[in-house]
């Protein structure tokens, strides 16, 4: 059967192409696949569309902002297109304000549910979030049982760049605490799911089938983070 364990991050993303769409998880600096993002940075692919909760932070650590600053990203789909504090002028904010990059602002729950729709083969769904606001303008509305909803469409991707705590060689994944965040829905929504693993990649059978967070059938490639890799 196909070997899913890759020797390094670069080989695991080597077939990423210009113009592709990628998903990058993480919330509050936890659960980002920083090593894989660094590999995409080294690969130098361009015109990417990124799907992520935010578009990078101000610190020096590798995140989606690293790819944006290197002008590898043409569009971001995210829940933050302006800084939460006026002082936080990230490369993304600067480039977005200068019209050097496109962005689509999506409420965070709708963002997660659109990925879940892609993961679950749902054609579209109605959500109450954003009704009556600027973000619902131009979208189809429908009243159901006396409540108004807007229609939202699935959000798939070519690649998901995932951080897991533990995996088996078949690709079954486990996450620790809030490291989980967007990782499972992204892993399940994307065409090719690449995972960097913190703790260990074990043999099939070592992970309790009742405690698998993402079944291995969704996972294509695994790389163990080496000691000198990026951990936090």
């Amino acid at each position, binding site marked *: 059967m196909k070997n899913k364990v890759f020797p390094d991050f670069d080989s695991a993303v080597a077939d990423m192409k210009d113009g592709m769409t990628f998903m990058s998880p993480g919330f509050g600096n936890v659960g980002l696949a920083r090593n894989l993002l660094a590999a995409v940075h080294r690969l130098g692919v361009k015109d990417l569309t990124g799907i992520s909760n935010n578009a990078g932070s101000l610190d020096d650590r590798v995140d989606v902002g690293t790819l944006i600053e290197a002008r590898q990203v043409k569009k971001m789909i995210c829940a933050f297109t302006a800084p939460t504090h006026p002082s936080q002028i990230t490369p993304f904010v600067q480039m977005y304000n200068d019209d050097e990059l496109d962005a689509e602002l999506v409420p965070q729950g709708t963002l997660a549910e659109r*990925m879940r729709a892609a993961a679950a083969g749902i054609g579209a769904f109605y959500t109450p979030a954003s009704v009556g606001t600027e973000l619902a303008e131009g979208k189809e509305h429908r009243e159901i049982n006396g409540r108004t909803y807007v229609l939202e469409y699935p959000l798939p991707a070519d690649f998901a760049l995932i951080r897991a705590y533990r995996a088996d060689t078949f690709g079954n994944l486990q996450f620790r605490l809030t*490291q989980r965040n967007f990782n*499972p829905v992204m892993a399940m929504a994307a065409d090719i799911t690449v995972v960097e693993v913190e703790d260990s990649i074990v043999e099939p059978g070592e992970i309790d089938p009742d405690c698998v967070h993402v079944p291995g059938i969704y996972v294509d490639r695994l790389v163990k983070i080496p000691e000198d890799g990026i951990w936090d």
Partner: protein
Amino acid sequence: MTTADKPRLSRQTMCDRLAMEFQDGWIVNLGVGMPTLCSNYLESEPDKEIIFHSENGVIGFGPLAPAGEEDRHLVNAGGQNVVALPGMAIVHHADSFGIIRKGMVDVTVMGAYEVSENGDFANWRIPVRKGGGIGGAMDLAACAKRVFIAMEHNQRNGAPRVLKQCTLPITAPGVVKLLATDLGLFEITEDGFVLREHAPGWSPEDIQEQTEAKLIIADDLREMRVRPA
């Protein structure tokens, strides 16, 4: 002394007052920033068991982790390390917003730029700036059982934030139930925008002066409470 010089309530007092409304067993979501101060109050009511939910899929977490005792995998909505409590559970992001959209969050407390007398509020976009930071606010505002707002009553230049109608793009229409500002506590009812409690030394007329919305003065208007009745 002009109203502009009168002392205003602290942010902690504003949040204490809102937290006083939380009921035993409630599921509570606190927005990033000022609203997180609500959790401090709860230490004074240890018998009241509150279940904290955060957008990133953690249910039943505890206070901020003491320095040196952080678990790097456990953060709240603000990205701060928190402590695990017994009975805590983790779900992924899509399931976390399923909890929100089903209406299981009893109250969400958020900051805002503006609140209007009909319960609209705005907290995600300033028009002069391109884009916005919506995060989970629209999902929470549309779906939580109650939306409480904690906000300074005036802008830095003195202009009112409590308006007849929001000037900024809104986060959700007609959802605010309770507003705590540094001038008092306001309830949005079917009859209108009711001043229930005032900052010490502030008369209803003083507060109306700082407010574009038309205030209805509660029959039982009282000074802002700092402890439950």
